[in-house]
């Protein structure tokens, strides 16, 4: 693969401050009071990206599984913390089940993509695994947060129906299955919708990046296609897992709804 990308020099990077100034002018002109946040955000983005740049350079150079796996797990942990933070109706923090669902779905799909489809040399190339797993995690995180949020909303909205079904002799799953399906569907819908419009409305970031890096568009498209369906698969598995793991926690050992659900 012979890429010919145009590097950005330090001076050119400095010139990008023009863009920050433009953003600042908008804020000042409209008196949005965002200048401080903008400045802080710009500094943070620069520092974070610089650090991650050095870190990735180091990790790619070492390229050992004992470094790659903990990093992937750390990424999964951060993503699950973010996903559970977004779910405010859960009676208890869904951090652990988020972590389990995200890790399982990301590793299953990520390993299929890396080991069977991209097949880098060596197979556990950090340069391939970290960005691929990162893309899966970022999208699955949104999916499971949506699914969980929807699941609790549905349960709260239909608590009397669920109780009635239980009273009629339903098993816990029978009592909530319609709402669980709605939750998984809600988590998967944005990803499916993005499959419909990709390439028509926008060029995805990864594909754009590869084209800028000199890859010919047809190859970039192949990568993008694999990434899209990989994300869809990971989101589907992640949503299914999180709903299956959460639904048990909705019920007592007596197969009745837990009381915390009545109080929220």
């Amino acid at each position: 693969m012979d890429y010919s990308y145009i590097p950005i020099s330090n001076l050119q990077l400095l010139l990008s401050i023009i863009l920050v100034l433009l953003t600042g002018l908008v804020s000042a002109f409209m008196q949005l009071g965002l200048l401080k946040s903008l400045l802080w955000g710009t500094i943070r983005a620069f520092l974070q990206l610089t650090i991650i740049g050095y870190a990735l350079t180091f990790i790619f150079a070492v390229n050992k599984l004992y470094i790659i796996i903990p990093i992937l797990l750390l990424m999964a942990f951060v993503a699950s913390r973010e996903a559970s933070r977004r779910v405010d109706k859960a009676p208890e923090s869904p951090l652990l089940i988020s972590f389990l669902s995200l890790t399982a779905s990301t590793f299953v799909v990520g390993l299929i993509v890396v080991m069977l489809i991209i097949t880098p040399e060596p197979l556990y190339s950090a340069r391939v695994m970290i960005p691929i797993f990162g893309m899966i995690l970022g999208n699955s995180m949104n999916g499971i947060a949506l699914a969980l949020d929807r699941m609790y909303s549905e349960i709260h909205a239909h608590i009397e129906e669920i109780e009635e079904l239980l009273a009629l002799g339903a098993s816990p799953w029978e009592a909530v299955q319609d709402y669980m399906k709605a939750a998984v569907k809600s988590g998967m819908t944005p990803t499916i919708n993005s499959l419909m419009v990709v390439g028509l409305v926008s060029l995805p970031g990864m594909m754009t990046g590869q084209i800028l890096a000199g890859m010919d568009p047809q190859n970039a498209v192949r990568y993008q296609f694999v990434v899209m369906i990989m994300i869809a698969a990971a989101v589907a598995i992640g949503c299914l897992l999180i709903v299956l793991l959460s639904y048990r926690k909705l019920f007592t050992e007596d197969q009745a709804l837990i009381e915390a659900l009545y109080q929220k």
Partner: protein
Amino acid sequence: MSRVLEFQDIRKSFDQGAHYLSASGYVDQGEVLLIRGPSGAGKSTLLKILARLIRPDQGMIYWEGQPYRAVDPALWRRKIHYVPQKAVMFEGTVLSNLQTPFRLSSMSDELRFDQEAALKYMELLGLHPDMLEQQAGTLSGGESARVALIRALLIQPQVLLLDEPTASLDDERRDLLLQVLVQWLKEDDKRAILMVSHNAEDIKSLPFYRVLEVSMHKGAE
């Protein structure tokens, strides 16, 4: 008369222990136990505890001498069946609502939906047979309450836990409903009813009943 349902030292606290419900009692075969008490006394909660829809903090419940933990919850809830004050109707027709319990796995093959029995109960309760095809969401409160009772009767419970079953009915329909309940009790001598009711007229129609007074206590915990 043999004891159908017995509950001992049931205790359930509310508002982090600021109040608690405490109750003991029993119902024998062929009997109606009226549960009475001021609003907020925990009468509905007691019924839900007996249906195992809410777990008590302590206490024991026995069904024909068996402790509740020894019985599968789904079987328990069908046999000791709770009917809420506000009837719950699912999406679909009245017929589909009446068939709902028969689609559940726990029902298996032991009991099948009996449309004739459904129609008979509808007639006894003053509901037109054409209503079977009506969307359940369009029913009035009183109609829903009667459909919910029919759904309960069709699954052949042994004990009915009824929360204000006549609350949404006029006098005439209330009498019909109570007649159906009395008749239901007589059909099988193993049956019993626990009923929350504020209505003095309800009691007049019941030939055999006892009263259990329930009240909320200030928390000692």
